[in-house]
């Protein structure tokens, strides 16, 4: 069965006779130190019997201020996945050309196909998956896509384009939109916040990964009013539920926790990288907290590790069947993985 997203698949575990609680999940790239401790208290105060603010005004203001943008330039959504679909549906017409810079997250392609866009791929190659910016900007100018999807830093390859290169890509897009997915920005840069680098850029920021709220489905877009108005028109009412809004606000009220845990995550990732490399594993060089590792047969390697109680992401669905992706967890858990890896090598 082709795994299309990370995380525990309960049916698969049931078939294999593995207790979900016994498995350490290295297959999702979430901050392993969890959300702010104030989140739970905030969630307890939520009244499930009342509708949430349909405009998420309080959270939107907090996000706007943190991102040095006005509230009109922020759209809160039910996770980045929701915003990707809103962008595709509101900004693409059937037959419109679009470009996906890959290999990358599968939802860009899924949503583009659903709208009937004419898909092109710009694919970075093994072994280092670095993006040739000259080649990319030339491709964009030649193709003139209506939408370009760029995940930065990229999932699963971990490659990170610096601001100047992102500017070049945005400029090359001309009047086309650049959807810049910065779900993992917090893990590689000083700050996960900031306004869009150019008016044609729609920045997507997840609160799932760095803020560690995958269960609540929360993300936001920062962009010029024009594209946001179009996305808003496609957004169903009450897309962001009360629990997500309350947790999001609690997290924004406690950014110290975010900075501290992101630092700790970077350290853990460094040690994991070193540990795996010592076993002889071929780890792709990247600054992210998740590692892309060449193992020959990703599916088989994943099964063998699962039998050892460690779940990693088989990258076949990314078009990289020889690779697995490993997201860092805490030090002791990483050690368990490294020991298991060593046993299997």
């Amino acid at each position, binding site marked *: 069965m082709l795994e299309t997203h990370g995380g525990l698949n309960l049916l698969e575990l049931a078939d294999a006779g593995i207790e979900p609680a016994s498995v350490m999940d290295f297959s999702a790239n979430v901050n392993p130190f969890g959300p702010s401790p104030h989140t739970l208290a905030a969630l307890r105060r939520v009244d499930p019997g009342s509708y949430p603010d349909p405009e998420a005004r309080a959270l939107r203001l907090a996000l706007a201020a943190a991102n040095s*943008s006005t509230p009109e330039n922020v759209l809160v959504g039910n996770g980045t996945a929701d915003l990707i679909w809103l962008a595709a549906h509101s900004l693409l017409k059937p037959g419109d050309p679009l470009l996906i810079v890959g290999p990358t997250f599968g939802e860009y392609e899924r949503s583009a196909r659903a709208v009937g866009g004419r898909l092109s791929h710009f694919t970075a190659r093994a072994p280092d998956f670095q993006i040739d910016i000259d080649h990319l900007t030339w491709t964009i100018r030649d193709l003139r896509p209506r939408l370009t999807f760029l995940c930065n830093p990229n999932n699963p390859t971990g490659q990170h384009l610096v601001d100047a290169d992102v500017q070049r890509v945005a400029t090359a897009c001309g009047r086309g939109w650049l959807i810049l997915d910065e779900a993992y920005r917090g893990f590689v840069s000083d700050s996960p916040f900031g306004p869009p680098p150019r008016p044609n850029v729609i920045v997507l920021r997840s609160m799932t990964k760095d803020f560690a709220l995958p269960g609540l489905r929360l993300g936001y877009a920062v962009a010029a009013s024009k594209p946001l108005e179009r996305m808003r028109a496609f957004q169903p009412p009450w897309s962001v539920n009360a629990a997500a809004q309350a947790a999001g606000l609690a997290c924004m*009220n406690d950014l110290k926790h975010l900075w501290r845990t992101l630092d700790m995550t970077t350290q853990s990732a460094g040690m994991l990288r070193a540990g795996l490399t010592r076993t002889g594993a071929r780890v792709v060089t990247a600054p992210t907290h998740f590692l892309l590792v060449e193992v020959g047969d990703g599916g088989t390697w994943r099964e063998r590790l699962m039998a050892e109680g460690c779940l990693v992401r088989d990258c076949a669905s990314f078009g990289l069947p020889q690779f697995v992706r490993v997201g860092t967890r805490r030090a002791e858990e990483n050690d368990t993985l490294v020991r298991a890896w060593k046993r299997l090598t």
Partner: protein
Amino acid sequence: MNTIYLVRHGAVPRRYRLRFIGRTNVPLSQEGRRQARRLATLFLHRPELVVLCSPMRRARATARLAVPHHNGKSQIIRDLREMDFGGWEGLTFEQIRRLDPSGVDQWANFSGTFRFPGGERLRSFQARLRRVARGLLRHRAPELLVVSHGGVIRSLLCLWKGIPLCRYPEINVPPGSVSIVRVQNGKPRIISMGTSG
């Protein structure tokens, strides 16, 4: 980086509209109270927000409605009060222009020695404005909510935009609106002016 939310108090009763209302301690109108309540939807669940408020009735009422959970924990800062228009209080611009045309000229040019007749000296207003600006930029709280008046907020925004104070009427800050300022290394950056969220 810190954030300062500059909130202008809500609307005052219609009979005061288009009149110079500074030190006159008028209440909020029904519309003003509605605007203040709308502000509450922007500042929900923010227990850590530090609230600084002008001592005037319309500002305090706005703060009480905008951040109800702070109830009384707002710090009253005298320097945040509106300009004192002295003898011009309660008059319309037309009336003042007929009464005191040269005064109006001096005021429009923000002439150094100008003083509202029986009211505040422009110099003192500017001095307290600079005190407010310094205090806000140095404040330790990561997020500040400042409830004040049109003259004060617009002048602060002029100061931080680096434009002459006499141009403050050009800045649109409607009643009940929020202006967002981010502060990094003691330097202010205006993100938005007069938004309703």
